[in-house]
């Protein structure tokens, strides 16, 4: 259990971000800025077809183009590499290679790679490669893909259903039998994706004399699993060094994005020179391996007439695309908080993970839990509509109460702490909910279509690895997901912290580390320097993702700081002739409690530690002040063997209430925001300004998912939204001004009581926007059951609602 220090000096302060000065000067040192002596450039040839057998490839013209060093096709790939790492079910039956070998399975799948002296020539050479495709029937509709006789994406699998199972948690039958009201709906969440402005890139260098492969890239996660990358590259695990470069955004999409560094590594080894491969935008949009969830739901919610929610039955078909690298981990996220903040007693979850001829899914801010939030909130609103209840009233009635934590939900996951009524009340006040309703009443009298949405939902943080394998009874999988840090206080008393994963992908790891280290030693954050270590010689690290980073790094810092401080106290105790327990770290010194003038500066102690061995107490064996610490998940348990309880796997659970008011123009289907309020509870807040930035940025992405963004595939598998002309990312004109409030309910299980908070905005906005649009169109009785809510859909829904019933 964490100690809850009452007063803190640095945690909770909106200090300016440490990362910003270099970014503002254009000195971000992104991977694409990196130049190595002798470096050459790679480009890939992508498949123009969604499903086709590769009959032949003739690369002779490309190979003879001046400036081309090498062309690699699927024909050579099995000699150069092993299959890609794959955490999905039965990888041997849907084997994934870095380039397509026998056939292409989606439009954009890499077919060949070229290395040339510059990128322009590499792309010229790609155009000279002649591929003879034999087109195969395409399957893009996951429901069609499930049917017998559908074209198979992977023949060895014998089906396109890569995984299916029905889980029952609690007494669903009884709850539905006893229910007085059951609402049902068919819900559709279309595929969108993170689309960071920087794509995935790598610069690889191979030394044939030492066998050492060094790869600079912007997607270094799971450093303790990089032996899998080494295996794909056919090199020994101790000859691979992945060095993280700052990433220009990720939002999940650089989470274990290993195809690009593997491709660069393979090519560097082949040509004997450093190779840079940076995806262009079309690569990233068509073949990032990180499209988001793509789900079709049939959902039933059981309730009582007084509004008490009882049970939830979910059938979900998820279109994973052509491969399934993370298995169904995105549904682990769903099950982490499938009942939302409500005391729903039982859940049935029937899942079909289907393969189609599309880019495969990966991670996108929320990792599937944002979809579940939308589904649960849509269904709660439907119950409220059925019963004529206000959205506030039904939520208040069903909230888990502050005194009921820690609270175990039917799936077995635990919610650590919370104050949902408190968050709701703050949001209602901040939005002036009654005032909004009054405004809405007047607007309706004027014939305007104004709607108010209100949602209250969960933000789980710090996943356990169990969520990637508890789907299967056998085999079981890994249970570690550590994060490490090395802290070093130098002889001048300044501190360097080394992080070991893709620490910077747009959030504020250096700022957070500076604040936590400053808090631990009571020094100024400016005395802390942060560097990013490579994987070789590094410590095990998982990297950001699932809003885990702040908690996990804070834990690692606390552990390392404790070791350094113990040693410093011994030294100071020896020098000051005072017992260590009578000393304290305060204001950059170690001083005697109650006699602050008796003190040594940290610099004085550090100098002794490094340079004056003969002045040290005899029980100090080593000079220096350096400590490593690997922090493991602070609270996770194994799933039950029968999987009726999945154990604790995502326990630090934040909460938010969002309220939005919109006006819809029923002639054009356009909408305007009149109000947007977000109140979050992320436990103890480290840097309020940065957290607010995460929330607003998440709202903008959630708005994209809710209203604008979709990877649209035609029936023949062509990506129709393959550029930013068609894939519409919200601009400053679309994103509303967000008014933010905070409630701080510390977690009892994490360092300082912090909860993760990187994803909350996107996990709330689709639900609240859907509710607001539906409320605006309430005079027509429109039901919003699909995102994105494009203007065409709004007009169609109104038209359908007005059409005479047969």
């Amino acid at each position, binding site marked *: 259990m964490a100690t809850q220090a009452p007063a803190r000096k640095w945690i909770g302060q909106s200090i*300016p*971000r440490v*990362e*910003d*000065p*270099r*970014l*503002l*000067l*254009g*000195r*971000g040192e*992104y991977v*694409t*800025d990196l130049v190595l002596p002798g470096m050459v450039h790679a480009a890939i040839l992508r498949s123009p077809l969604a499903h086709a057998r590769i009959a032949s490839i003739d690369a002779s013209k490309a190979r003879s183009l001046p400036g081309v060093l090498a062309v690699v096709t699927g024909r050579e790939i099995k000699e150069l590499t092993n299959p890609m790492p794959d955490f999905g079910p039965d990888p041997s039956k849907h084997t994934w290679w870095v380039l397509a070998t026998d056939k292409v399975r989606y439009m954009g799948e890499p077919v060949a790679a070229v290395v040339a002296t*510059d990128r*322009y020539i590499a792309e010229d050479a790609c155009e000279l490669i002649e591929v003879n495709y034999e087109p195969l029937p395409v399957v893009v509709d996951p429901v069609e893909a499930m049917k017998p006789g559908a074209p198979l994406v992977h023949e060895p699998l014998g089906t396109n259903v890569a995984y299916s199972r029905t889980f029952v948690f609690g007494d669903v039958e009884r709850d539905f039998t006893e229910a007085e009201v059951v609402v049902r709906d068919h819900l559709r969440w279309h595929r969108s994706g*993170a*689309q*960071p*402005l*920087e794509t995935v890139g790598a610069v690889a260098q191979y030394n044939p004399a030492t066998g050492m492969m060094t790869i600079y890239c912007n997607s270094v996660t799971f450093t303790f699993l990089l032996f899998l990358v080494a295996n794909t590259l056919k090199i020994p695990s101790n000859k691979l060094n992945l060095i993280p470069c*700052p*990433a*220009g*955004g*990720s*939002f999940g999409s650089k989470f274990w994005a290993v195809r690009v560094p593997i491709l660069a590594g393979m090519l560097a080894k082949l040509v004997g020179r450093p190779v840079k491969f940076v995806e*262009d*935008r079309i690569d990233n949009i068509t073949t990032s391996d990180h499209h988001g969830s793509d789900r079709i739901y049939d959902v039933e919610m059981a309730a009582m007439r007084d509004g008490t929610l009882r049970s939830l039955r979910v059938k979900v078909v998820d279109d994973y695309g052509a491969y399934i690298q993370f298995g169904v981990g995105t549904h682990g996220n769903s099950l982490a908080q499938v009942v939302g903040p409500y005391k729903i007693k039982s859940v049935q979850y029937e899942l079909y993970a289907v393969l189609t001829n599309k880019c495969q899914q990966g991670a996108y801010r929320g990792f599937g839990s944002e979809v579940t939030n939308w589904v649960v909130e849509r269904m709660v609103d439907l119950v409220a509509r059925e019963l004529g209840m206000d959205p506030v009233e039904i939520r208040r009635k069903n909230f888990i109460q502050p005194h009921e934590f820690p609270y175990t939900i039917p799936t077995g996951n635990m919610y650590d702490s919370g104050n949902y009524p408190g968050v709701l009340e703050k949001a209602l006040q901040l939005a002036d909910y009654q005032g909004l309703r009054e405004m809405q009443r007047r607007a309706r009298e004027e014939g305007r279509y104004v709607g108010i949405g209100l949602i209250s939902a969960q933000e789980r943080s710090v996943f356990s690895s169990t969520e990637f394998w508890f789907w299967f009874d056998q085999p079981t999988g890994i249970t570690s997901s550590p994060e490490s840090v090395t802290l070093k206080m130098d002889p001048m008393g300044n501190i360097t912290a080394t992080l070991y994963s893709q620490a*910077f*992908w*747009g*959030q*504020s790891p250096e700022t957070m580390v500076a604040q936590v280290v400053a808090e631990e030693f009571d020094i100024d954050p400016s005395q802390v320097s942060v560097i990013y270590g490579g994987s070789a010689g590094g410590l095990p690290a998982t990297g950001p993702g699932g809003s885990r980073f702040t908690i996990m790094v804070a834990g690692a810092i606390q552990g390392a700081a404790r070791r350094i401080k113990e040693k410093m106290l011994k030294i100071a105790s020896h020098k000051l002739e005072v017992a260590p327990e009578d000393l304290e770290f305060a204001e950059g010194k170690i001083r005697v409690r109650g006699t602050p003038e008796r003190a040594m500066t940290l610099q004085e102690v550090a100098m002794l530690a490094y340079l004056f061995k003969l002045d040290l107490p005899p029980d100090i064996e080593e000079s220096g002040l350096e400590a490593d610490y690997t922090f493991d998940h602070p609270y996770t348990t194994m799933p039950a063997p029968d999987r009726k309880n999945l154990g604790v796997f995502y326990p630090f659970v934040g909460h938010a209430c969002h309220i939005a008011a919109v006006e819809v123009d029923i002639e054009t289907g356009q909408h305007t925001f009149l109000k947007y309020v977000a109140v979050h509870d992320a436990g103890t807040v480290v840097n309020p*300004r*940065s957290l*607010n*930035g*995460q929330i*607003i*940025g*998440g*709202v*903008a*992405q959630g708005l994209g998912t809710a209203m604008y963004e979709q990877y649209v595939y035609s029936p023949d598998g062509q990506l129709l939204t393959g*550029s*930013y*002309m068609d894939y519409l*990312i919200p*601009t*400053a*004109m679309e*994103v509303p*001004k*967000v008014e933010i409030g905070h409630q701080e309910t510390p977690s009892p299980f994490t360092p300082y009581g912090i909860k993760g908070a990187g994803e909350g*905005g996107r996990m709330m906005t689709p639900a609240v926007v859907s509710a607001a649009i539906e409320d605006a169109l309430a005079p027509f009785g429109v039901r919003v059951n699909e995102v994105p809510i494009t203007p065409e859909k709004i007009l169609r829904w109104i038209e359908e609602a007005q059409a005479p019933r047969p």
Partner: protein
Amino acid sequence: MADMHAIRVTVNGLPYEATVESRLLLADFLRDHLGLVGTHLGCEHGVCGACTVILNGRTVRSCLVFAVQADGAQIMTVEGLARDSQFHPLQEAFRDKQGLQCGFCTPGMLMRAYEFLQENPNPTEEEIREAIAGNLCRCTGYQFIVEAIQDAAARMAVASR
């Protein structure tokens, strides 16, 4: 050999001469030939605005301009904003308001804001939103960028008084 052309440009006050292929993009010229890697390429099809630079006083998307088209031009990039490692007021405001997260769109955003504040030194929030609507930011949701540009306008008004 491909068709090559001699060009002369002034970038951030310094003169450069180079011989370049006609198809070389201005963005790649700045980044790969001059080593000015502060200008970023986000989409390479003219939508995201990350590669925005100022060419003869007006912003352009350097992914949509060929280097040869810039022959004889005065160019300003993000590297030209700070003077003697002193932040420009725009940079100060972006830092203080946290008008950035990953920093990838930031150089383009700064160039657009620089141009815009020359045109409109005292803008409203709505005018700022419209002015930067051609620059995508995937991290911030724009709100702190808008605040930063408002703040920069105030700082620059004080500075010019």
